[in-house]
């Protein structure tokens, strides 16, 4: 078979109803994607079971094995549909994986009752201020690129606003992270991390503590000044993902592949 096609019942005709599914479908790379995923999971599971790799390394291995297939698929997207579609395809896929990571953290914290520090998701070393900072700037850049390459509509503007605020939040935490590291170094404290501190919103964040907002109606808004950081970023990403899906869906309905 040289090209795979979606074979869903016509009554549902999901690709027509949800054109994002067509965009995300690996098409001729389906076998490669499935094979990569299978090999990745098998190798990783075995490595974890034998104690050769920690969970985060196994997760990274699965993603690394999937990467070539993904690159081929996105290259194919670019050739077929152009810049906007491939940007959307990459963003939905990567942000989707990122959201899964936040969902896992949320489950670890709220369902498995791990501590905040232990609730690191599947890729624990990636749960660092550097990664969050770079990641959110890349997401923001991708949204801007979508706009510049012709994606329009109110949803993409809403997404831009949310991505911008999210990036501002991570920039704030990243800058403070650097300053606090410097303070710790000045005290000869070198073995303490400054990761995971509150940002602008959430419990002990800037809104909760600023002299302008402290004790005002803002602090009455549920969660805005009381939710823990893990929840805050779970909701940031869920909101961003939801807006991205709606914006992508609206765009592809107006501009079919």
């Amino acid at each position, binding site marked *: 078979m040289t090209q795979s096609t979606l074979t869903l019942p016509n009554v549902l005709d999901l690709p027509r109803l949800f054109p994002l599914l067509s965009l995300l479908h690996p098409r001729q790379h389906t076998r490669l994607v499935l094979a990569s995923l299978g090999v990745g999971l098998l190798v990783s599971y075995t490595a974890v079971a034998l104690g050769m790799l920690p969970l985060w390394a196994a997760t990274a291995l699965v993603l690394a094995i999937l990467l070539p297939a993904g690159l081929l698929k996105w290259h194919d997207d670019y050739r077929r549909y152009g810049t906007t579609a491939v940007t959307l395809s990459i963003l939905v896929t990567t942000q989707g994986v990122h959201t899964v990571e936040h969902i896992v953290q949320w489950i670890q914290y709220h369902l498995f009752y791990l501590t905040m520090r232990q609730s690191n998701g599947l890729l624990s070393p990636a749960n660092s201020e550097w990664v969050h900072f770079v990641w959110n700037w890349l997401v923001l850049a991708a949204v801007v690129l979508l706009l510049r390459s012709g994606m329009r*509509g*109110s949803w993409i503007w809403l997404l831009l606003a949310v991505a911008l605020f999210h990036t501002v939040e991570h920039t704030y935490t990243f800058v403070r992270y650097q300053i606090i590291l410097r303070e710790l170094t000045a005290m000869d*404290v070198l073995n303490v991390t400054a990761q995971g501190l509150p940002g602008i919103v959430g419990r002990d964040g800037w809104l909760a503590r600023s002299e302008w907002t402290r004790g005002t109606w803002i602090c009455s808004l549920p969660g805005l000044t009381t939710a823990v950081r893990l929840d805050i970023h779970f909701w940031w990403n869920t909101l961003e993902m939801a807006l991205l899906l709606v914006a992508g869906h609206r765009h592809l309905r107006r501009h079919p592949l």
Partner: protein
Amino acid sequence: MNSRILPFLFLKLASLLLASLLAGCQPAPPPAAPLPASLPAAPAKLTHLPLSGNPVCSGSFVSHRLDFTTGTRLREIGTYISNGAGVAANDLDQDGLLDLVFASVDGDSTLLWNEGGLNFTPQPLPARFTRAVSTVDVDGDGWTDLFFTHRGRAGISFWHNQGPAAVGERPRFELHPLTGVDSYAYAMGWGDSDGNGRLDLVTGSYGVELTQHGVAADDPQAGVHLHLQQEDGWHTQVLAPDAETLSLAFLDLTGDGHPEIWAANDFGLEDHVWTRQGNRWQRADLFAQTSYSTMTIEWGDIANNGQLTLFTTDMNPYDIHPRTLAAWLPTVTQLAAQKRADDVQVMANVLLTRASDGRWHDQATRQGVDASGWSWAARYGDLDQDGLLDLYVVNGMIAADLFGHLPNAELVEENQAYRNQGQRFTPAPEWQLGSTASGRGMLMADLDNDGDLDIAVNNLRSFAQLHENQLCSGASLQVELQWLSTQNRSALGAQLLLTTDSGILRRDVRASGSYLSGDPTRLHFGFPTGTTLQRLDIYWPDGTLSSFENPPDHGLLRVTR
């Protein structure tokens, strides 16, 4: 549907969701019916006494050094010496002035006899290595006795007030056995839990410190114990075998007119509440949120609506400056919080109000008091006498094993004063109560007899302080109860309602509650100048009521029953 409308619908939906969350995030408060209106009348005599002090006015508080220190004799302070000691006040020699008693973790406890004009004469008391202190007339002989808890394995010590040997002399205190009370104790609480007219005692041990002293975790003397005082002596009930108790209180948390017992626990051990069911005490689940390491318990009617608002302190930096957080981080990372299903603990102060579901919900962030540093004692008190209870929290930490990265192993913080604005608390730096000494125990009392509330603090590794109130705003009435027909002479547990033309002020007589400290049984009502006082209602612990129309609007009222 027009696609341009969708984002706005989305926003509208989001705002509706937000509104529903706002409405649903906390049940509505129960109707304000704090105390029954019709009760058997209790005849009582009212004596109006003038105050002898002359107010000095500077518009702020002025700090004075008291002749007492604790923690200064030790070369190094580590956990849990770091937890410091308490302070209590009462009129021990019946001269009309409130005397002070300081506990000490590294030496003798000390009485500071109040000579008037903020002059105090120290008298060491051979009660050594003490933690909490309470001033209670336990045997109803009319003289206020002293009780201490001690560091390590020692139990409660009872210093009986013998009264003066001769006219003009000060009372003497003798160490008496408290037969039948033999549990380990860090914190203590006093109240008449069974309504027999005798004061009962609840004690709580501090498990981590007992472990340091070689006490096994399952030692039967450890835990929370209720000691009931009956005609034939003390009878003990074990409420909980495990405890990390820093504060204890007898307090009506269910609104049924009978006190519950509330034990505030350090670390991951949740606070426990027991409610009385006949002759048994059963655990009750009343809190939707509590502090994680609950240091102190405080309560009062902060909105003058007849409802109590509870306040507990925890460790949470009061500012988020990077330098502050850097000072905290090496320690905080050691305090890996345990987490369990349905865990209601949060590492922050909580301000709890009771809702229609009967549970207490946190409003601390909304009120701006969720973080006051590494906090210990906290007290409500109408410091500016505007009719609203303000809040003061003492803080700071010294521990070589926790803060070795800081100079002198000390986390230096400013005590936090909050002015009650009616709807929320706001910081009140203009009161100049931001002492950087490492405060532990603290109380509010009119120590210079000028009508307003002063503050006494037992600091660790520096002199104790008296913050003299020189705000000179508003007016006040102080009330003292004498219930001569029972052994509960000071009427601990009595509720007082002062009805004024601008609201109803509520106070209660208590001897303990705040971190390691004891309150005076003299109550302070502040109100704006010109307020008309319409009625004073006293709800006695035996369920009777004394009412007085048009009480005087100044001085000290002694109500004798």
